[in-house]
């Protein structure tokens, strides 16, 4: 198959756009797993909630995209705090499997709720005026909105990485996961820290949801399609590794993009193929440390 350089470049760029979604979603999962040891299956449903809230705000109250970019993560974050306080709190001492089951149950509830109201075909959301139109890059037409997705998610990803790895608050968080009792002995409220971390993790999912709203048809099932891939991304990057999640997300987006050119039929499975290989060679993931 003959593939021209411009065609390849444009596919790389599109891969990067999808990779941005993977990065921001897997980052949230990694943060939650790293600090709470919970495999948050509800991540996809909360991603969907972010998108649906954005649509609802526009349709019922005419609140625009930019407001929702901040408001939707906040609302979903608060929802996450409630989930953590009411439900997750009780299962930390149990096996991972219980967390997975609990959050899977939550997913079914949330998705079922929205499906009963809006059906499955989805809701259309327009690209905000400031970002409509496209850049002509010579080798391709890049919609401005897609470029914005890459920029916005990179900023959020690296800010999160910086906050956790380089600040004092981040140091508390990391210490809290290593040895919660000792950190508590220093007078730091570890349970509160954990609650807020979960809230922040799911807020990231909602942020990705808002970013996705104008690109993907908003549907109660939109999270389902993404979440499995994102789990694979986290496994490849290494559970709990912040930078690992970001880089793996972007990288896999690009690899997936290339697969769509060379052998499109495999584009939905290539991520899992890589996951298998990585698990064979480095069971802790590319960036994970074996404990």
């Amino acid at each position, binding site marked *: 198959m003959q593939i*021209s350089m411009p*065609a390849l470049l*444009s*596919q790389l760029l*599109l*891969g990067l*756009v*999808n990779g941005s979604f993977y990065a921001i979603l897997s980052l949230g999962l990694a943060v939650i797993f790293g600090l709470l040891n919970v495999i948050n299956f509800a991540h996809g449903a909360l991603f969907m909630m972010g998108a649906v809230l954005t649509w609802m705000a526009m349709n019922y109250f005419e609140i625009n995209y930019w407001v929702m970019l901040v408001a939707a993560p906040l609302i979903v974050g608060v929802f996450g705090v409630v989930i953590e306080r009411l439900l997750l709190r009780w299962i930390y001492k149990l096996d991972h499997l219980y967390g997975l089951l609990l959050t899977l149950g939550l997913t079914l509830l949330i998705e*079922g709720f929205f*499906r009963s109201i809006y*059906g*499955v*075909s*989805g*809701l*259309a959301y*327009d*690209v905000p005026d400031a970002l409509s139109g*496209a850049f002509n890059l010579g080798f*391709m*037409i890049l*919609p401005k*909105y*897609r470029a914005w997705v890459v920029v916005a998610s990179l900023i959020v990803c690296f800010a999160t990485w910086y906050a956790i790895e380089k600040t004092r608050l981040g140091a508390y968080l990391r210490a809290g996961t290593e040895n919660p009792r000792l950190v508590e002995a220093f007078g730091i409220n570890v349970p509160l820290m954990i609650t807020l971390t979960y809230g922040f993790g799911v807020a990231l999912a909602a942020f990705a949801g808002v970013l996705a709203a104008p*690109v*993907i*048809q908003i*549907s109660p*099932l*939109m999270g389902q*399609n*993404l979440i499995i891939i994102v789990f694979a991304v986290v496994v490849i990057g290494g559970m709990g590794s912040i930078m690992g999640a970001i880089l793996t997300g972007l990288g896999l987006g690009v690899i997936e*993009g290339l697969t*769509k*050119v060379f052998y*499109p*039929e495999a*584009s*939905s*499975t290539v991520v899992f193929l890589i996951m298998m290989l990585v698990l064979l060679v480095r069971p802790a993931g590319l960036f994970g440390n074996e404990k």
Partner: protein
Amino acid sequence: MKKSLNAIALAIGTLALATAAQAQVKIGLITDMSSLYSDVEGKNGALAIQMAIDDFGGKVLGQPIELMTADHQNKPDIAATKAREWIDTAGLTMVFGGTNSGAALAMAKVAAEKKRVYFNNGAASSALTNDQCTPYTVHYAYDTVALAKGTGAAVVEQGGKSWFFLTADYAFGHALEADTSRVVKEKGGTVVGAVRTPLNASDFSSFLLQAQNSKAQILGLANAGGDTINSIKAAKEFGIDKTMKTAGLLVFLSDIHSLGLKNTEGLLHTTSWYWDLNDETRKWSKRFFDKTKRMPTDIQAADYSATTTYLKAVQAAGSTDADKVMEQLKKTPVNDFYSKGTIRADGRFVHDMYLVEAKKQSESKQPWDYLKVVKTLPGEQVYTTKAESKCALWK
């Protein structure tokens, strides 16, 4: 003596019970109630069937008509198991198979084995009345051949000679691509290429750029539901619609509603029915709308029509026996707000189809005013012909 008398009495009693159970009409709708095709038929399909039962008076052959529904979750094994269970334990007299070709074909087999009347509206695969036809299947609303001959031929005639397909990578998508390619080539067009996309892919932009690079005039969407919606949306975003014209090979009213006319205007496709065809269709659709707050898809209208057709056949046959009912069905023409036509020997309900185009936003006068009819396609021309058929029942 007394003992044997008792035995005879018991036998008569059981026999009476058995005939009574046989005479009661029970319809079992097994379709996608929760996933990607549930807006096409789903719970509102069940509602349309119930409307038909109520309009019929709720009774046939002196017994109340019963409707049961189940979600097959797009899994053929669940669909087949449910159909078998209901036939064996609940005395189902008609299996109403829903969306999803895989599930539909599985249920057709069970119904044929158990000798039960089998109707299907939602599934597209023409195999139901071709190489996998059975004496008990009625494929009512549409099929892949009709879609291909309808949209494919019309687009080529309008000058869309070179095609590139975006194909859902499973049996249904492949069939639709193959059927359409054949029509395009017959009409003197060419197929430049195709890309097989995984079912439920969330991002179609990459595939669309490949389509654009092919320099074809027509983008043929051999997919359905969410895949169609997301490909149309991305085509708009990337400006593909400026260089190529999109032909949706299977588009439902619920897809147009979800995308909005802004994203779909000018989209050419084939449908078996539209709510705004004439006074009769509008009248029925208004009743449906009052109950659901949505206008019906062609599948939901077909659900109503198929149920009425079946109940009339039962009444005329004076029996729920599948062979007698099928005989009645195949000799009685259908004539109602949904369609006019006949059920052929292979089980295909042959009726007119419509080539439609999504309106411009400025042409839409009211909510759900989405389509205009470009051309009526006579049933004999768009469905499988005798020469093309491999069905042994039609030889």
